[in-house]
């Protein structure tokens, strides 16, 4: 039996949107997210003594301090997590670990991703996130040895992983495309999904524009704004909350590089060490999992995670996705919220959508997408250029 000391007890999630009507600074978004998540959990703000977040653009230094001040919370545990798309999942286990060792009792995990108001006289063009992922500072290896060659944004890196995978294991374009299709079928039942009204077929995916061979446009996430928050608390306190508590019974994290140029083997991702650690800690077999929610910036990320996290034998992922229905209605439910591919990537909150997908299912709150049995889930986060991986085993009380 895995850990039973900290539980996820409530959440809020803002529907990803391409355009955001009401600009908010990160601190302002955090305040609203905090209020909503605490209300959902039925926990009073006065009980919160831990805050975990990502970077806040208006507070490039000392973000955790600015956050405690803005929310007027005196913390016993504050943390800023900066491991790319795996950050949200990384925040969850750090919060649970802090509760487990007794540093704090109740933690708010806050992931704002809204556009800030534009300052009078400000240049809107400069507000657009550059494709260099801030890797062009002087002295950065990325600025000297990746960016000049066009290895920018995320697509070329994941495309090179896909190229290698297809060459090594014979994965077919149709198999990768089917991942996007199955997830879209789940998104059609998610009122918060950007693509809730647009079913697609494998043919549609393969007919969409080629962005970076072999990655088609419909195999990439739609960048959006968004936000999300989760409340974690001790098992004792969790037992007296309004929803079914969900224990974080095991977790793992693995990082070995930043850019794909220095990934030791492009067809072996850090999902393996993270998953082995997480399932070992949880004392659980992969077969006991009712649903998976895998970080999906690209279709190849899902395929590689299926294999490296130990659900499918190495090299069998392509055949597996072809033979199984990955939608909420299928025999291997994976990203029942539609994933970021179907829901839209709500900025850095995109990584929290997988945590919330699993939490919502285990709490029986997934509406039309609700699985008949949802007691255990495996969630992953992927950050950098297939560089960081976080795995979370979640179990309903």
């Amino acid at each position, binding site marked *: 039996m895995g850990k039973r000391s900290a539980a996820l007890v409530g959440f809020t999630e803002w529907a990803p949107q391409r355009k955001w009507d009401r600009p908010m600074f990160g601190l302002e978004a955090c305040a609203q997210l905090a209020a909503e998540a605490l209300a959902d959990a039925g926990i009073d703000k006065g009980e919160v003594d831990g805050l975990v977040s990502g970077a806040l653009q208006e507070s490039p230094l000392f973000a955790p301090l600015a956050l405690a001040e803005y929310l007027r919370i005196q913390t016993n545990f504050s943390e800023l997590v900066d491991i790319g798309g795996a950050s949200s999942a990384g925040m969850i286990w750090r919060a649970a670990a802090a509760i487990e060792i007794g540093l704090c009792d109740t933690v708010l995990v806050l992931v704002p991703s809204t556009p800030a108001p534009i300052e009078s006289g400000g240049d809107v063009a400069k507000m657009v996130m550059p494709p260099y992922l801030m890797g062009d500072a002087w002295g950065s290896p990325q600025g000297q040895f990746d960016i*000049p060659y066009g290895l920018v944004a995320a697509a070329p890196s994941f495309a090179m992983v896909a190229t290698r995978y297809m060459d090594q294991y014979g994965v077919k374009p149709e198999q990768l495309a089917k991942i996007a299709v199955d997830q879209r079928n789940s998104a059609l039942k998610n009122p918060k999904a950007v693509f809730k009204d647009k079913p697609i077929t494998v043919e549609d995916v393969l007919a969409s524009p080629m962005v970076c061979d072999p990655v088609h446009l419909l195999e990439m996430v739609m960048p959006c704004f968004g936000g999300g928050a989760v409340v974690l608390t001790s098992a004792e306190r969790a037992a007296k909350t309004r929803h079914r508590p969900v224990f974080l019974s095991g977790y793992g994290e693995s990082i070995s590089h930043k850019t794909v140029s220095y990934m030791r083997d492009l067809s072996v991702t850090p999902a393996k060490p993270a998953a082995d650690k997480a399932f070992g800690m949880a004392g659980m077999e992969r077969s006991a999992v009712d649903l998976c929610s895998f970080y999906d910036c690209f279709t190849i990320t899902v395929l590689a995670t299926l294999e490296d996290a130990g659900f499918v034998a190495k090299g069998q992922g392509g055949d597996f996705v072809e033979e199984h229905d990955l939608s909420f209605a299928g025999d291997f439910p994976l990203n029942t919220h539609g994933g970021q591919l179907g829901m839209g990537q709500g900025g850095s909150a995109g990584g929290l959508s997988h945590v919330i997908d699993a939490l919502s299912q285990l709490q029986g709150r997934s509406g039309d997408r609700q699985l008949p049995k949802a007691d255990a889930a495996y969630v992953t986060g992927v950050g950098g250029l297939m560089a960081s991986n976080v795995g979370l085993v979640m179990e309903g009380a």
Partner: protein
Amino acid sequence: MRVEQPYAEGGRPIPRRTPTSAPHFEAAREGRLRIQRCPRDGFFFYPRSRCPDCLQDDWAWQDVNGRGAVYSFTVDRVGLDPAQRDRLPLVVAIVELEEGPRLTTNIVGCDAEAVCIGMSVEVTFEDLGSETLIQFRPAA
């Protein structure tokens, strides 16, 4: 103080050498591929102050023959870096040198559709004005 990323005429971002990487870029100006070699752990890339394996600093610069094979690649069809949109389709590749290390580069001098994993390539150089960029082309 942050200096804006410089660009060559035609749009390529120009790498900004550092005191540590300068000998690598200086050699490229002269048409040679020069990387570091640790006496215990062998060649490594990119240039570092210490060997990434043993963290010792008794490495030496060494010119290599510039031959290798394509480890993986992609073809950017849309210009993810708007600055490089005049160069499409842009073949972005990871090349494994005969000496072992891998580096990210572009494959030039052939049709993008002709590039494949395992293809033998050799180094070539592109003058960006103030710096020289390492490129690879199909081996002669």
